[in-house]
């Protein structure tokens, strides 16, 4: 462990800022995907093991849209909406049939969907990796130098976009009638049904919203990551770590945990360059020992 290097970094504004912005970017992209996962679990009680393919499809849809339109913003939007529509079909066609089933059946269904979609992606877009969709022209500029820290403007754009989505999501869940219904559905769906509320609508709306967020994460990530089938696997593991650390079903917890993971990766690379992946799991283990329900998870 290079403690001195970490202390040097923390005491130097350039390093501190540069690592912090890098960590924020990693964390915010992760939040988009993980928030969908935790939302679906919190309301539907489903652990969506197929969440990684939603992220992957977001990247592929955005790539295809970029090929057709050449417009970055539109492509990202198409990527996210496309995955939302896919999520609707997935929930209505398959997931709704296993709401009452045991965990094993849910896992089997998700795993089957992962294999099918991964293979379909290879059939449609080919086995080889696709190059990223690239950053918009407006961001193809030299990086900013703030207190000597090197910061790509595009990373700031990703951070602000994700923050905006986080705020909108928070407002939707806490300040709207829909949010109240979703929270109520998470606690007592039978009571909602007794009151004449269409819980089916709430269920698939939540699944579509979760899918949209994962698709948006994938589409934004496609701007600088090469695109390939199975790209959802690693993000799925990280999303589960975020969900466990933040607390199953807590959007606020997912936000906090994503930031923790992003910073752990970024500053961990300074202090423990050979242990950055292990660090994520270490944090998860510590949380599980000290606070098993997660940082913001509710006691059941």
């Amino acid at each position, binding site marked *: 462990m290079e403690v001195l290097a970490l202390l040097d970094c923390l005491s130097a504004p350039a390093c501190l800022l540069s690592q912090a912005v890098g960590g924020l970017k990693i964390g915010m992209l992760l939040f988009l995907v993980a928030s969908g996962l935790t939302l679906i679990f919190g309301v539907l009680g489903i652990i969506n093991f197929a969440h990684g393919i939603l992220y992957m499809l977001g990247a592929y849809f955005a790539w295809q849209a970029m090929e057709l339109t050449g417009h970055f913003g539109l492509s990202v939007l198409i990527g996210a909406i496309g995955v939302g529509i896919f999520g609707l079909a997935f929930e209505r066609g398959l997931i709704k049939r296993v709401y009452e089933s045991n965990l094993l059946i849910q896992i089997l269904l998700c795993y089957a969907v992962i294999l099918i979609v991964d293979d379909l992606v290879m059939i449609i877009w080919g086995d080889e990796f696709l190059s990223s969709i690239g950053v918009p022209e407006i961001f193809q500029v030299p990086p900013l130098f703030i207190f000597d820290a090197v910061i790509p403007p595009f990373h700031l754009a990703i951070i602000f976009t994700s923050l905006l989505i986080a705020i909108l999501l928070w407002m939707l869940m806490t300040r709207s009638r829909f949010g109240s219904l979703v929270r109520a559905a998470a606690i007592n769906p039978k009571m909602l049904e007794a009151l004449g509320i269409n819980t089916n609508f709430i269920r698939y709306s939540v699944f579509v919203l979760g899918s949209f967020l994962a698709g948006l994460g994938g589409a934004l*990530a496609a701007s*600088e990551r*090469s695109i390939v089938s*199975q790209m959802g696997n690693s993000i799925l593991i990280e999303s589960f770590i975020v969900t466990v650390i933040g607390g199953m079903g807590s959007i606020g917890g997912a936000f906090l945990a994503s930031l923790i993971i992003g910073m752990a990766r970024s500053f961990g690379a300074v202090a423990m360059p050979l242990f950055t992946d292990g660090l994520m799991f270490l944090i998860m283990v510590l949380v599980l020992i000290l606070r098993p329900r997660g940082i913001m998870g509710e006691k059941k």
Partner: protein
Amino acid sequence: MKNKKSYRTLRRKLMKYGFAGTAYASIGFPTLLKAESNIKIGIPTLLSGRVAQLGISATNGIKLIIDKFNEAGGFNGRKIELIIRDSRAKPDEAARMTRNLINSNKVDIILNCEASSASFAVQEVIRESGTLCLHCISETSSLTADPSIRTWNAFRFARQGIHDAVGSASYAANLVKEKGLKKWMSIGPDYAYGRDSTATFFEILKKFSPNIEIVGQGWPKLFQPDYTEVITQIVRQKPDAIYSCLWGGDLVSFIDQAALYGTFKNSELFAINLADYTTMSAIKNLPEGLHSATRYIAAYPDRQENRDFDSAYTSRFGDHPTNWSWETAVATDFLISAIQETKSLNPKNISESLKGKSRQSFIGVGEGNTVTMRSKDQTLVNYAIGWGSTLPKEPYMKDIKAADWESIQELEKEWLTSKGWI
């Protein structure tokens, strides 16, 4: 009565010939068929995921040569049949598939098109079975350089890490002198090849330029999607130069992401695996002036035969060949030549024929444009290694300087001695 008797005789005869025919069919036909059957070559490789271009372009290189051979009538009418399996780059799968190819598919030869980690698994399988194996992809030097890993029935037709390291280090040493590149960093995939390639490069570079200083090393996982944490390290350390042995989609992602930080304006990148068409064309905005070994480009060696290989491949498969394509094409050419020479599929006979064999090749820089299967460690030598810097568009490379095979072999010997392998 006579008619009845002759009918019985005829029936007996028919039964006799029928039984004899059945017995012959069950014993004799297979023997005949075997004599006339195809020569089976098993190919464990990876055809899916972020580095699928490896398996695709490698098998294409084989098909290009095999199809010519089959069209010309094969070997005494026996054609070569390829049985290709996708291991998805998992060593355990590669080993299982190789075992199946040998035991169930009864292949005669294994053309191993796996990356390094899986190649070591394949090596152990063929060591046990005694099947002839031509490694076409793995560049990890120890596969053939370490006598404890080497085996009599395995030959490496891939370029070798130590050869590239010497070529790279001698090219880099000139630039160290010219531009004063003192502070170095590295980023390499965290598995056998990445560690081996990086360590060897710096070991040799320090022989040429003892004053260089390594200020940091990044080891992302193979197929890691995001390199931000390593790039911010590079930005923090401000190295004069970066050595990278990332490859395929990983290298593409790294360059795309690092370019956002303006990394290559301040640091010279020496990316050993960059100059392959599929990699360079996948980078969104390929910066000018990155340094790379010529993995495969039609412009080097600058000869008609090389351009012919490129155009034959491109017109058949709709894309340029890669480094892996030339490696498999050369391996297949050597194999066919050895089969024809020995008129046998016996691994021992073919092995003897391959040892020390030289063949004229589009990629050869030995005497008479040949490449040679060096007999002492069963590895290919005298293939073209050049280093140059990138251009954003075709021909993608400029100022290519050829590596000198004499000094490669001299320093390789020193390196082998230091490892205790000779």
